């Protein structure tokens, strides 16, 4: 059988899997297997080389449109890439997390921007930050205040953002800003793609308790953004942000399920097979396996219909519970090894990071609220 053409690979995620698997079996990416680095900037840099290798060899260039400099295919190609990397014990580069959520809305709502700028991200040469949250607008995103005021040829942005993942070193910032009146809530929001070296824009790292600069705050002091850097129409930001969050429910949850399966194996190889460990590892496995099963369905639904319903909030709750559960189990089962010495750096680091998983992208409490309101149709909470 002759090897499949680019069009055949792009048209069928199963064909893609075969090609990708063959390539991975040749061992090209195996150098990244045990390449964990505590320092996050170093880690992103090193993993950027893997993104580049995958892209330039072709196998990492599916899942994105040809117009954006890639080889075509859809979100199931991305899901397949994450799956196959995880199965081979290769870490998923940090880039893919942000790409998976920021990429699809860019391609859909701003194809001309995707054409100009996505390729550098896909090639691992840069990464971007997502700036939605503010000090006074977390889960209640519609109350954000960072303002983009129309001026000649574009907008002037003033305000502050916070909790931008991998903000340090990000080349571009996807910003959700207010273009409507302060009372316009979700109706008056607009999305922009801004170069991080624009004058007036400042990124300051926020170290998690583990010492890693996982997050950042971003300050905007009269930052000029040209109109052509707007993603979608003015005041369309909320709809696009909601579109974006669906990829977090589906693809990101799927990506993390693959990572968690690997970490569960690593934990099992580290701890003594006591009865307590058997019960705990078994429970975790059920959580991760259910997450994987649900995320697979959500990812397929997203690929087929372009959208998923409020039921995907279940995936988000399961994801947070699996992440937190995994690291709690590691802490419990590893005991003193977790707390002392230098063999458990990574478990300790991940323990702190895992605490954020029930907060980012809409806190677990907000997800429970969505499920209660929109899935279970319970009578609404009385509001004062």
């Amino acid at each position, binding site marked *: 059988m002759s090897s499949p053409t680019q069009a055949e690979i792009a048209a069928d995620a199963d064909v893609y899997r075969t090609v990708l698997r063959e390539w991975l079996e040749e061992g090209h990416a195996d150098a990244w297997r045990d390449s964990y680095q505590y320092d996050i900037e170093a880690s992103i840099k090193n993993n950027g080389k893997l993104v580049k290798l995958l892209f330039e060899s072709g196998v990492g260039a599916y899942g994105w449109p040809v117009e954006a400099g890639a080889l075509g295919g859809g979100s199931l190609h991305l899901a397949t890439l994450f799956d196959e990397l995880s199965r081979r014990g290769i870490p998923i580069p940090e880039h893919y997390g942000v790409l998976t959520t920021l990429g699809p809305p860019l391609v859909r709502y701003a194809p001309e921007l995707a054409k100009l700028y996505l390729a550098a991200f896909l090639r691992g040469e840069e990464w971007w930050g997502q700036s939605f949250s503010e000090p006074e607008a977390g889960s209640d995103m519609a109350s954000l205040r960072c303002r983009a005021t129309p001026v000649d040829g574009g907008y002037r942005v003033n305000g502050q953002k916070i909790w931008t993942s991998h903000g340090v070193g990000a080349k571009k910032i996807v910003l959700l800003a207010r273009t409507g009146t302060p009372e316009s809530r979700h109706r008056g929001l607009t999305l922009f793609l801004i170069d991080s070296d624009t004058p007036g824009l400042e990124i300051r790292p926020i170290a998690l308790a583990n010492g890693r600069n996982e997050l950042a705050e971003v300050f905007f002091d009269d930052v000029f953004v040209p109109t052509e850097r707007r993603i979608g129409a003015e005041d369309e930001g909320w709809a696009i942000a909601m579109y974006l969050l669906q990829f977090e429910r589906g693809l990101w949850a799927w990506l993390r399920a693959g990572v968690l399966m690997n970490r569960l194996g690593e934990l099992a190889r580290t701890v003594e097979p006591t009865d307590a460990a058997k019960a705990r590892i078994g429970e975790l496995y059920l959580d991760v*396996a259910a997450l994987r099963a649900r995320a697979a369905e959500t*990812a397929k639904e997203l690929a087929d219909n372009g959208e998923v319903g409020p039921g995907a909030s279940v995936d988000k*709750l399961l994801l947070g519970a699996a992440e937190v559960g995994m690291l709690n189990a590691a802490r419990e089962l590893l005991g003193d090894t977790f707390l002392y010495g230098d063999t458990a750096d990574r478990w300790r680091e991940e323990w702190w990071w895992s605490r954020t998983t029930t907060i980012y992208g809409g806190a677990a409490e907000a997800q429970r609220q969505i499920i209660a309101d929109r*899935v*279970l149709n319970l*009578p609404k909470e009385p509001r004062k």
Partner: protein
Amino acid sequence: MTPDETKELRSTITALLESPAGEIPAQLDELGWEDLVAEEEEAAITALFSEHGRVLGTSTILDGVLISALGVAADAVIYNAVESGGTITGILVATAPEGDAVFAVPGLRTIASVPAGGLTVSPLPNFDEDLSWSKVSFAAASAVSSSDADWEAAEAAGQRALAAEIIGIARETLRLVMAYTSDRFQYGHPIATFQSVRFRYSDAHSANEAAAGLLHAAFSTDDVRASRAAKALAGRAAQLSAQHSIQTFGAIGSTKEHVLHHYVARGAVLDSLLGSSRDLTSQIGAEILESGFAPILTEL
């Protein structure tokens, strides 16, 4: 199966389950059940067993799943069997046969031919008082063989059916309590408007749908470990739904007059068949500790 066909199947099953429990297996035969399961296992099994759970059915359809998967001519199944001192003891869900009988005994993975008079039957006090299951014992010498039957696959089929039934119970438990607390007022508002109550339901719903998701995956693979995992997770989910329902029904939920206790007890006893949630979970954990790898059981 198209959505319309699934809907039709469900209403056929709902009607069928209104018959007396003893007639249900024969009616399923008439419907061509085995062929349907062979063609559309997931749709058929989930429709039948989740509905059986929802209506608190007491028929022996689980025996049917195991016997048909084993492909042996057995009369009934003996569950939770143990062998001790030359005697096999276990639980019989079906009515005890009068004459010679052949039993499938999962757990011990054996087929037993027990002659008339060789079966000791005693009533089995049950956490679920609606069930007239019996405790049975017979001489271990009656156990013929494990035959060529694929016990692993048969147990997995039984576990998938049980998982569907347990999920049916858990969903109905949650539906009942949500309906109740949506109508009942405290402090001037329906109970289901209070966040602490709503969050319990969101968690219970998530647990039920997680189990349903894993069960769906289990139907799509030949790896029997997925079926074990699905049953383990279903048992855990039913416990959570039971716990949150009992609490938010208030005292009425723990009374004889209220329907809830039937669901709570049924979920608990079904969990015990073909491996409890607790035992299966530890078994899965033990295997992962042994191999050092968490098995990927489901594909995209």
